[in-house]
């Protein structure tokens, strides 16, 4: 009888289940790309604040990486490859003022990794953004150190010492503060750079005068980021560049940051004018969007997929809620720029949003059944 079982053994074959193709974007790649997108803003921060900024960022990175290594060794896993520890360290470093004593970023990064992420099960299981958790811990623990602002750059640039938002706060409480935020600052002796002075006056004279509009002094500084502040938060254009790169690669979903910034800007415009004695619809939305860590937090931390809702509708609601909370905390609270705390509050609400919107999904599918 002929041999009917011709076993042509082609060597060992992989028997993993379908599908046998995968999208090229992997989780670790996504996270490393987010870190990459932060590099321009980090470089700008180092350029403005010098060697202290480098020290802060490096300390934060080391603390984050060591914490992650130590805690994942406990679970016998090596998780540094997924890039999230590095990202947390980088974000914590960028959210610090450059003059902060080094134990602050170290403790904040370690707190973020150990308490916020690893204690709950590691990547994907945290319900709060780790970097933000660490930053808020630092804000509560060392509020003095976290508000010690070094001047931006050398004497040739702006020699103001307070970031614009903090300066505005103290200026507004003084009597006689009227006008747009930047005008209030100028009238209270806030010093912008000479480059800003020349550019703004040129623009006012040659381009805006036919429209009878004037650009407030300091606009250039604020937009480009020649002002004091936290290391990574000052330069809006570079942050937006990184964010645009991430959105185009679909790593960050645009719904949350855009809803966040838009809601906040709208509310700041409608209601924000009262502080400066201007009335309705005359708050300075551009000033408020560009000051504080709004851009950095909205695009790089509120957009973090682990702590945002799953459904698109949920993302819109979440972003809008964050904008509202930030507006309330910044204008009527005493917590600095209000962004970090509002994102943390929003993170708490995300599971609720997920559950509420999930219940609706099967009903939507049922509607079309024949």
């Amino acid at each position: 009888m002929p041999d009917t079982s011709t076993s042509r053994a082609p060597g060992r074959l992989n028997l993993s289940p379908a599908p046998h193709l995968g999208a090229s974007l992997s989780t670790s790649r996504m996270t490393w790309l987010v870190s990459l997108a932060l590099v321009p803003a980090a470089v700008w921060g180092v350029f403005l604040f010098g060697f202290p900024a480098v020290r802060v960022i490096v300390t934060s990175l080391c603390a984050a990486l060591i914490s992650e290594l130590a805690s994942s060794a406990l679970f016998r896993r090596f998780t540094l490859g997924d890039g999230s520890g590095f990202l947390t360290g980088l974000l914590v470093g960028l959210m610090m003022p450059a003059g902060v004593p080094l134990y602050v970023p170290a403790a904040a990064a370690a707190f973020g990794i150990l308490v916020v992420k690893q204690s709950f099960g590691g990547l994907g299981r945290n319900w709060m953004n780790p970097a933000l958790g660490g930053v808020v811990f630092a804000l509560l623990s060392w509020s003095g150190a976290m508000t010690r602002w070094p001047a931006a750059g050398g004497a040739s640039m702006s020699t103001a010492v307070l970031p614009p938002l903090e300066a505005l706060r103290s200026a507004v409480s003084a009597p006689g503060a009227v006008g747009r935020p930047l005008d209030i600052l100028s009238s209270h002796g806030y010093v912008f750079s000479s480059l800003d002075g020349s550019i703004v006056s040129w623009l006012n004279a040659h381009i805006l005068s036919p429209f009878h509009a004037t650009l407030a002094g300091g606009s250039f500084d604020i937009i480009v980021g020649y002002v004091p502040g936290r290391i990574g938060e000052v330069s809006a254009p570079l942050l937006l560049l990184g964010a645009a790169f991430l959105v185009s690669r679909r790593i960050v979903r645009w719904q949350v940051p855009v809803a966040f910034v838009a809601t906040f800007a709208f509310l700041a415009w409608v209601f924000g004018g009262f502080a400066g004695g201007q009335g309705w619809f005359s708050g300075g939305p551009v000033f408020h969007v560009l000051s504080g860590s709004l851009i950095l937090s909205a695009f790089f931390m509120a957009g973090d997929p682990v702590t945002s809702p799953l459904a698109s509708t949920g993302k819109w609601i979440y972003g809008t809620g964050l904008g509202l909370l930030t507006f309330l905390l910044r204008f009527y609270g005493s917590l600095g720029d209000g962004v970090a705390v509002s994102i943390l509050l929003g993170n708490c609400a995300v599971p609720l949003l997920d559950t509420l919107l999930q219940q609706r999904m099967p009903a939507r599918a049922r509607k079309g059944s024949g």
Partner: protein
Amino acid sequence: MTHANSLPRGGVNPPDSSLISREAAIANAVVPSVAVIPMLQHSGRAAICVVKPGDLVREGMLIGRADGVRSANVHSSIPGRVVEVRRLPSQGGCDAVVIELGGEFDRSGKPRTLHGWEKLSRIDLLGKIQSAGVVGLGGELVPTHLKLAMTPGKTGSLLVANGIDCEPSLSADFALMREKPGEIVEALRICQALVGAARVVLALGEDAEGLVPEFERAFKRASLQCEIALMPSRYPQGNEQLVLSSLDGARPSGPRPSSVVLNVATLFAVYEAVVMDKPLIERVLTVTGMPVAAPRNLKARLGTPVGDLFDDCGGLTAQPGKIVVGGPMRGVAISSLDVPVTKGTSGVTAFAGAEARARREWPCIHCGICVEVCPWDLVPTRLHKLIQQGEVETAMSEGLGRCTECGCCAFACPSHIPLVDILRTGKRSRGRANDA
């Protein structure tokens, strides 16, 4: 010709290598020297084996009789002698007849006789289709006589010829439509005579737009009123329910009793059964993959070992790391090249190198991409977490039963979580619990 709506939502665009395989004409695969023909190649009960070792069989002879109405006949694809009746471990264990080639061919190489069918009654037509063992070749493998047995002339009824290849990289349906449009149209006429639908549609992928003129001519010649609907090439547009919902705009839902969707390969088998009195003993399939020297479509006999098909395509240029029966999205990986071609084999894909290796798995990062791509409005990440925690009933109440294991979620997942595997395990565990 109309451009139908796209998929209501979801779907993915995996890399599609079907353009390479569709270039060449369909070639006949070499007749196997040994054919292994399982008794269960359809949905429903396995056929009952009616031959024993030592019997001589002819090409097209019945070797397995359908076990009741919800079953199908199985025929021998080659002439020869039955060597043994082997027990195959797959599909919960079924018998397979092993036939050694020998003797004369009754059909191949002989002139074909075409029979008229217009004078046959409904019962006779359905009987011809049933006795030929025709089943749905698009993947569901439902015996076709069951699908066509619906009451004719129901209002709003729809008869659809599905010419969209169900998987990326597979182009068997496209090639068949390119080479046999007349036969497919004739089969569609037969089915329309049986079903009497109010509307007959041929669904094509957008990349098959070049076939439209030939089909329009064929419809005119056959005096068949048929629309042609072009649908975007997005996986899993070829799924039956998604084709229907793209045509009428409603969201995909369960089976619709007044619609009949038949794959073009099934239609061709209906033509062969009714007009040529030929049982289902061979089918067109795509052999593709990076290590295949010349990917192409082959007409292969049922029972051919998969390894033979690679030889017909110039062999493998590299050591394969993974071999899949079917396409890259839903195919099943096999461990030996002896696995036979069955009625449900729409293609064979080989992978080598990095493509074949398992991808590193990360934890779920809650990104929501799986929710965006699921065509069935499911939330795969939540379902998989529920199943992993043992909450299968909760998962079922959130729609796990609607999952067709299309693979879009697992394809798109950046953490490479084996979602389809987990969801399938969940569905099966519930099935077992129900049986218990």
